[in-house]
């Protein structure tokens, strides 16, 4: 947009912060590995203990990359939803994507006990959990897209998304009522969210989907900027509203759905990061905001994951809780300081 202010310093800071928090995230963990050793392993060298190499390459680096992908894509989908629904409270899950994923996961984990499938017990492994939750979020997304073709009003779509969320949450409660304690525990663990446990091949798949989502978002930048004026104005400056709305919804579905499938529902990041970003980059131009939220989201989730890991202890706190515990006060503080929600 105009004037083409440069936000180079802002991006430099964010880039630097990303590198720092990545280093911090990788070098801290339940096992104490000296920082120098960590660096030498990352740079392709060897460590004093060979188990350290294994920990870093097979656990910490995939985990850090997952945190980057998850943080970036959740934040981007939050930005897309806030602009599409012109609502500062919108997040990646307003379309019912996470509740769809929860339903998928719940059906798999708890349905097993309901339908007495002792034989299917082998199913409840990570990979089938991923399949089930992606199916769940994809189905909900599909319904939302079908509804979107019939409904002209974007606000109605928002409410319908929220209603789908309630329905699936209710179904999950019903399922849990009939479920054995063991399965319930498994489900609750999934709902804690975790960026660990991803293999390199799963990571590749996740990054592929996230990449497509980012590309679709970049293609939507022009219409996102136009939507800032409202739908009627956007149409009057040549934006095909329906088409751009699909594009944005599908991008959100891919971004938020894939992350939820692989890492469980991670709350708050998608809602908060766009607001935090607008504090640094005082613009509404999505050409600036899209890359900025990607960076900011990645940094925030890396830091949250570092904390959740509880360095030097064997405890791992649920990341879903950490993101809210850390993030919510930040937003409250920002609002108290600035006294208004910039949107």
């Amino acid at each position, binding site marked *: 947009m105009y004037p083409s202010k440069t936000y180079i310093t802002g991006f430099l800071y964010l880039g630097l912060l990303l590198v720092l928090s990545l280093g911090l995230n990788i070098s801290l963990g339940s096992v104490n590995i000296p920082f120098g050793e960590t660096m030498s392993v990352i740079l392709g060298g060897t460590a004093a203990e060979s188990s350290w190499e294994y920990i870093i390459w097979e656990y910490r680096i995939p985990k850090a990359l997952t945190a980057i992908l998850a943080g970036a894509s959740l934040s981007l989908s939050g930005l897309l939803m806030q602009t599409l629904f012109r609502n500062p409270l919108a997040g990646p899950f307003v379309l019912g994507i996470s509740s769809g994923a929860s339903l998928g996961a719940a059906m798999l984990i708890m349905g097993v006990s309901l339908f007495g499938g002792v034989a299917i017990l082998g199913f409840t492994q990570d990979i089938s959990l991923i399949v089930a939750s992606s199916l769940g979020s994809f189905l909900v997304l599909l319904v939302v897209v079908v509804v979107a073709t019939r409904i002209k009003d974007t606000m109605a779509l928002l409410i319908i998304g929220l209603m789908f969320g309630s329905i699936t949450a209710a179904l999950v409660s019903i399922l849990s009522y009939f479920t054995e304690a063991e399965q319930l525990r498994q489900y609750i663990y999934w709902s804690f969210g975790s960026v660990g446990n991803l293999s390199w091949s799963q990571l590749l798949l996740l990054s592929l989907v996230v990449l497509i989502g980012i590309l679709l978002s970049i293609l939507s930048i022009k219409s996102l900027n*136009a939507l800032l*004026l409202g739908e009627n104005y956007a149409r009057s400056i*040549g934006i095909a509203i329906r088409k751009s709305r699909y594009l944005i919804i599908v991008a959100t579905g891919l971004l938020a759905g894939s992350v939820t499938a692989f890492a469980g529902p991670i709350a708050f990041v998608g809602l908060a990061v766009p607001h935090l970003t607008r504090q640094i980059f005082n*613009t509404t131009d999505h050409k600036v905001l899209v890359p900025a939220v990607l960076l900011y989201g990645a940094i925030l989730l890396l830091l949250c994951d570092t904390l959740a890991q509880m360095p030097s202890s064997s405890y791992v706190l649920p990341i879903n809780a950490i993101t809210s515990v850390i993030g919510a006060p930040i937003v409250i503080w920002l609002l108290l300081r600035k006294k208004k929600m910039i949107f």
Partner: protein
Amino acid sequence: MGVNGIGKSTLLRTLGRIQPELKGKITLDEKPLDEYAVKQLSRKIGVVLTEPLSTRNITVSELIALGRQPYTNWIGSLSTTDREHIKEVIMLMGLDSLKDKKCFELSDGQLQKALIARALAQDTDLLLLDEPTTHLDLYHKVQILKTLQQVAHKTRKIIIFTTHELDLAIQLCDRMLIIGPNSQYFGEPCELIAQKNFDTLFPSDLVRFDASTGTFKIQ
């Protein structure tokens, strides 16, 4: 012009294809309006609506720049021509001192000017404005309408707007359309006065048109 609820805005919004036509056909440059692609139409018609902007956290120049979207590339980068157009419009509307202000910092009159500037930046032959002077004081009403008149005469654009400012419209408009429940009159303001067409504008129980002053008087 017309009383509240007679369909001024509906007519204007239908002309701008913001809402579908109820009946009849609209053609623009001898081509039916609904055969235009959205993008094509955006180079023909610019609009200023009564609905508020979705965000007010946008600077005046960013807002005006969005008017260039019909001409920009897939990601919306501004060319030199686009920038020149924007500069020109900012000068024309006297917004130079406000161009880096956010829209929430503007007064109603300033915001209206910025919205008109955005529509002008779109560089269309036809400009549709829905009640551009509501909520403004007399001075700013005149200022907006006077600027519109100058723009219309200088750039040979067609500017259509709905309004309740009878006396100002009579003085500033080239042609007026009076919409009544049973009759419509279209012509130059002095013709309409001579033909007593304004008498039908409102129900006659409370106000009466006074041809000598060009205003309505309370009965």
